[in-house]
């Protein structure tokens, strides 16, 4: 079976499309997470392939279906947090051969193919539909939701795995070379001028502070709240390995990476995998978990005019994203019980939620909002998952949290100040991402 990247036609990336044709007809019913680790320790049983299998099997069991009922698989083939397998190092064949390998020895170690998953999960005997999504779980969810809605699969697994290798990523390769191609020298992102990964967001945040009279210290309550929520997320990295609160003093005294972005404004790369099981709303009634219905998916495809997106471009794009999200779901901002927009640079979460007009926010309001009660116990919860800041770089905590909150199984993280009925999650970037609206009911 050849697996293709999802065509752009599966995404809802423009305004004016109306209500999603499958609104309320697709549901998530199963969740599976692997354990987390800071970095891969080189063992087969902790490889990204093994973690992914673990997550998939857990999601299947959680949904209460038998593996032979699964007929679809959507996954992200790229698994790197930033570090790629070094070209001068052989792939460990003992790890490769601990599984049923494909032609590419990196499969299961530094990437994932649908073929590798199927070969190593022989219980998946009826998978007829496979598809790849780019980047992160947010895209895979959109593709799987559309696929189930379109009838391409009935019980569809959705998977994202991450590997994290030794070393500081982006510090080798072209960053260490004496000469660079002209296109790299003047490209967006990392360039001749030495911009670290967070620089673009830091620049937008600097302009945000200039434009609205805010400052970096105002991020502290958000950071503290995110870590607190993350420590209540037993699947997360900090909860599992270093259950330490992040105090405002810790946050504000941290070293700068690109001022106004400090170390904690960046997330921590980890090893982890998660999987979900999507099905039709009808089939979901017979499964083990309460269905979480998908009201819409929407995508943003913003393009910066020049070398880096400006604040003004970001604000225009996130506002458009908000309109797309509501239009397709047939809801308004007032209908949102809570939000789980991406935070994997902490300093762009406010762009996402201002774009949503969450709790009536307008551009420039979010940092003041952060100074109010944004806890899971309050009426205006912010990022109840804790996001990447709360649990490490996975870009899927926010989706899992939406499902768990609506299903009533978020444990100590359960929202008590609002009734969790409709939520939105997604990302990653304000200028480009994929977003999903989740609901306790199909209508």
């Amino acid at each position, binding site marked *: 079976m050849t697996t293709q990247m999802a065509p752009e036609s599966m995404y809802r990336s423009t305004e004016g499309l109306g209500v999603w044709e499958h609104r309320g007809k697709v549901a998530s019913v199963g969740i599976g997470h692997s354990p987390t680790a800071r970095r891969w320790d080189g063992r087969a049983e902790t490889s990204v392939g093994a973690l992914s299998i673990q997550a998939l099997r857990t999601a299947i069991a959680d949904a209460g279906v038998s593996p032979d009922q699964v007929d679809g698989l959507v996954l992200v083939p790229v698994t790197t947090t930033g570090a790629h397998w070094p070209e001068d190092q052989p792939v460990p064949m003992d790890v490769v051969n601990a599984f049923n390998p494909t032609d590419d020895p990196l499969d299961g170690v530094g990437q994932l193919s649908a073929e590798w998953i199927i070969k190593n999960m022989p219980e998946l005997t009826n998978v007829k539909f496979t598809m790849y999504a780019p980047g992160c779980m947010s895209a895979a969810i959109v593709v799987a939701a559309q696929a189930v809605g379109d009838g391409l699969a009935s019980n569809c697994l959705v998977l994202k795995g991450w590997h994290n290798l030794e070393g500081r990523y982006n510090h080798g390769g072209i960053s260490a070379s*004496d000469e660079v191609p002209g296109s790299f020298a*003047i490209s967006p992102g990392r*360039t001749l001028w030495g911009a670290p990964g967070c620089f673009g967001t830091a620049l937008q945040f600097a302009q945000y502070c200039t434009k609205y009279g805010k400052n970096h210290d105002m991020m502290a309550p958000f950071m503290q709240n995110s870590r607190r929520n993350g420590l209540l997320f037993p699947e997360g990295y900090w909860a599992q390995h270093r259950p330490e609160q992040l105090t405002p003093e810790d946050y504000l005294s941290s070293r700068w990476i690109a001022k106004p*972005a400090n170390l904690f404004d960046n997330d921590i790369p980890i090893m982890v995998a998660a999987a979900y099981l999507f099905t039709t709303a009808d089939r979901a009634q017979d499964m083990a978990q309460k269905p979480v219905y998908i009201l819409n998916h929407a995508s943003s495809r913003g393009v910066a005019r020049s070398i880096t997106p400006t604040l003004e471009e970001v604000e225009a794009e996130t506002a458009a994203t908000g309109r797309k999200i509501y239009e397709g779901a047939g809801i308004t901002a007032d209908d949102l019980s809570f939000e789980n927009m991406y935070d994997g640079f902490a300093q762009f979460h406010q762009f996402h939620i201002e774009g949503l007009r969450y709790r009536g926010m307008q551009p420039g309001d979010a940092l003041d909002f952060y100074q109010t009660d944004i806890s899971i116990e309050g009426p205006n919860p912010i990022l109840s998952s804790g996001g990447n800041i709360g649990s490490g770089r996975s870009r899927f905590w926010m989706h899992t949290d939406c499902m768990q909150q609506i299903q009533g199984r978020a444990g100590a993280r359960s929202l008590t100040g609002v009734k969790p009925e409709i939520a939105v999650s997604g990302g990653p970037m304000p200028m480009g991402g994929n977003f999903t609206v989740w609901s306790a009911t199909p209508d």
Partner: protein
Amino acid sequence: MVKQGVVPEDLNRPFFEAANEGRLVIQNCSACDRLHFPPRAACDRCGSGDNMEWKQMSGRGKIYNYGVVYDCPVASLKEDLPFNLAAIMLDEDPGILMYSHLPGVPADEVPVGGAVQVIFEATANGQKVPEWQVVT
């Protein structure tokens, strides 16, 4: 600060050749009169690929905003940490941004919105690139 050497490619060669001559040129679509930076094969507004020309700029701009880099992935710049990294808006079109280390400006003492003038700085292999100085 000595930046990594630059090896021009076909798409950006006119930009770098002009820099060696002390001129700032930016790609412009003559069909719809729209500037582009970084260079691209076709206009992002009208789609034309046959009308991309190089247009000389005044070399004047303003500082959009900036960050101060303390942790830099580029090996050759690490000894200069911390350093300013600003985005410069061209006077001809503030939608066109270029990066600058703002030579001569102490770290974190950047006048946001201030006027700047282009200069040309040699990289490690002698290829020049545009840099920007604050106009006092």
